[in-house]
């Protein structure tokens, strides 16, 4: 059984976001890129744990992006992924990305696809569910615990008002949330081997562009914070009513 982990290349969580070309493009100058945390900490690390426990033969990471993303893919190798695939296209939207990944997964016999629940860049929570749609597979979303018993997955996942424990025969797509695994730091052996692990670059197929971004706007910061001391809390509570109108 082989596991496919889609990874996204995103600006580090502390990045100060800026735009270029009349606010029509993300300005990547000087930005540190990382593997999307949900893809890495939860999906990839749990996939690696399953392989280490002898429950999977191989963990492949897959990414839709240009050559700038190769360093991020190699970070996944350093963490322990066996090999990687980069589909050589900019990836205009989630539909395009998911379609490419689903096609690869289908053609190469991956039975378990473990995606992060969302990216911290475009926050669409869409790719995992779209892959399930393209492959006509069940989806278990927001998984927080995942076990494999043979070809049966046992999953705990978030639902409205609580959690639910479910089981499902593979093949299956899951989207991973906090709780799946703990963050890992690559060890020296991993870092050394990352350079030589196979990274296959394949061209994209199809060119559907169902959505595109026209412009970006930075979110307005809040104006000044009104400060109160412990003797004027009543005043603040009144302002929450009269000024902010939230109570």
């Amino acid at each position, binding site marked *: 059984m082989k596991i496919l982990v889609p990874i996204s290349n995103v600006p580090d969580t502390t990045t100060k976001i800026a735009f270029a070309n009349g606010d029509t493009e993300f300005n990547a100058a000087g930005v540190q890129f990382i593997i999307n945390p949900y893809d890495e900490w939860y999906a990839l690390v749990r996939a690696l744990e399953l392989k280490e426990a002898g429950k999977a033969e191989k963990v492949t990471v897959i990414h839709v992006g240009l050559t700038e993303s190769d360093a991020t893919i190699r970070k996944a190798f350093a963490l322990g992924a066996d090999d990687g695939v980069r589909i050589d296209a900019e990836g205009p939207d989630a539909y395009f990305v998911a379609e490419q990944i689903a096609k690869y997964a289908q053609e190469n016999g991956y039975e378990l696809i473990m995606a992060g629940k969302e990216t911290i860049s475009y*926050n669409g929570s869409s790719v995992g569910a779209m892959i399930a749609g393209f492959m006509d597979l069940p989806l278990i979303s927001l998984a927080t615990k995942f076990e494999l018993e043979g070809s049966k997955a046992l999953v705990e996942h978030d639902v*409205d008002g609580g959690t639910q424990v479910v089981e499902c025969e593979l093949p299956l797509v899951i989207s991973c949330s906090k709780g799946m695994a703990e963050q890992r730091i690559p060890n020296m052996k991993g870092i050394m081997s990352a350079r030589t692990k196979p990274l296959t670059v394949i061209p994209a197929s199809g060119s559907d562009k169902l959505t595109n971004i026209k412009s970006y706007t930075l979110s307005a910061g809040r104006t000044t914070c009104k400060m109160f001391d412990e003797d004027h809390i*009543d005043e*603040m509570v009144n302002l929450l009513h009269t000024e*902010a109108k939230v*109570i």
Partner: protein
Amino acid sequence: MILVYTEINKGKVKKASLEAVNYAAKIAELTGASVSAIAINADAAQLEEIGKAGAKKILSVKNEKLSTLDSMLVSSAVEQAVKAEGAKTIIFSFDITGKAVAPRLSARLKAGLVAGAVDVPTINGNSLEVKKNVFSGKATAIYSINSDVKIISLLPNSFPIKLGENSSTVIDFAVDLNSVNSKIIIKEKKSTDVAGMVPLPEAELVVSAGRGLKGPENWGMIEELAKTLNATTACSRPVADMHWRPHHEHVGQTGVAIRPNLYIAVGISGAIQHFAGVNGSKTIVVINTDKEAPFFKSADYGIVGDAFTIVPKLIDAVKKFKANQN
């Protein structure tokens, strides 16, 4: 024709679903289209509520299989409704079901999806242009949806709900789910709901606390403040990681992202990752001993002081305010 997906939870139409119906009605005003809603296993009172939110026609689906909310089954039901109604625009809430079903439908129908819209779209030729948050709320982007069939999921709590007269027609809509091959079997359900408390993603008022509280034994005053305000409790990531509070209370970039009307942060410094999960809040109150805490820069109201002194005083102030209101 605009089709909007609605859902029942704990005997009521979900607040996020009513928002989605309102939103569909706003789009209908712009385009002149009519709004149909699909309602799953809803009773007469619930259908009435959906009508009041602005649906002109309600496809009432009664099918026990759908009660699991399995995204394959729900998606198939919505797809059948889309085809029956000839819907060109499909609206979901960007909630747990919407996040699982809308993308699947997008893949099935080759329909462009904007997931997490925060505003009413504008029409540009055959495209809809709609705003959503990106980079965890640090920015917004205008997306253009160019496909023939378009899907938008609406970020919850983006608009207040308006209910009017019910002028809807309800029709029974039978769906065929026999060809759907979902193998997910539910073994156990665990509720995290606290009696009398609104679940965090839907809460309009949230009281949240962090490491500044020093230990789980000190949460009594946070719970009391929340109860006084009729708010929901939340916490920062370290607090959840140290198991002082349950994981489902964790708000922030890797936890739940919320956008309540009021977010009160006690003893939380306001790291960028925490702020990313709460920056959609309409009003932010920060209570911290450190006047240099970064959270004050992103807050509307702040109190520098020890939580153990301030919170009890705040509880008294809120009680006094509530008493004067009555």
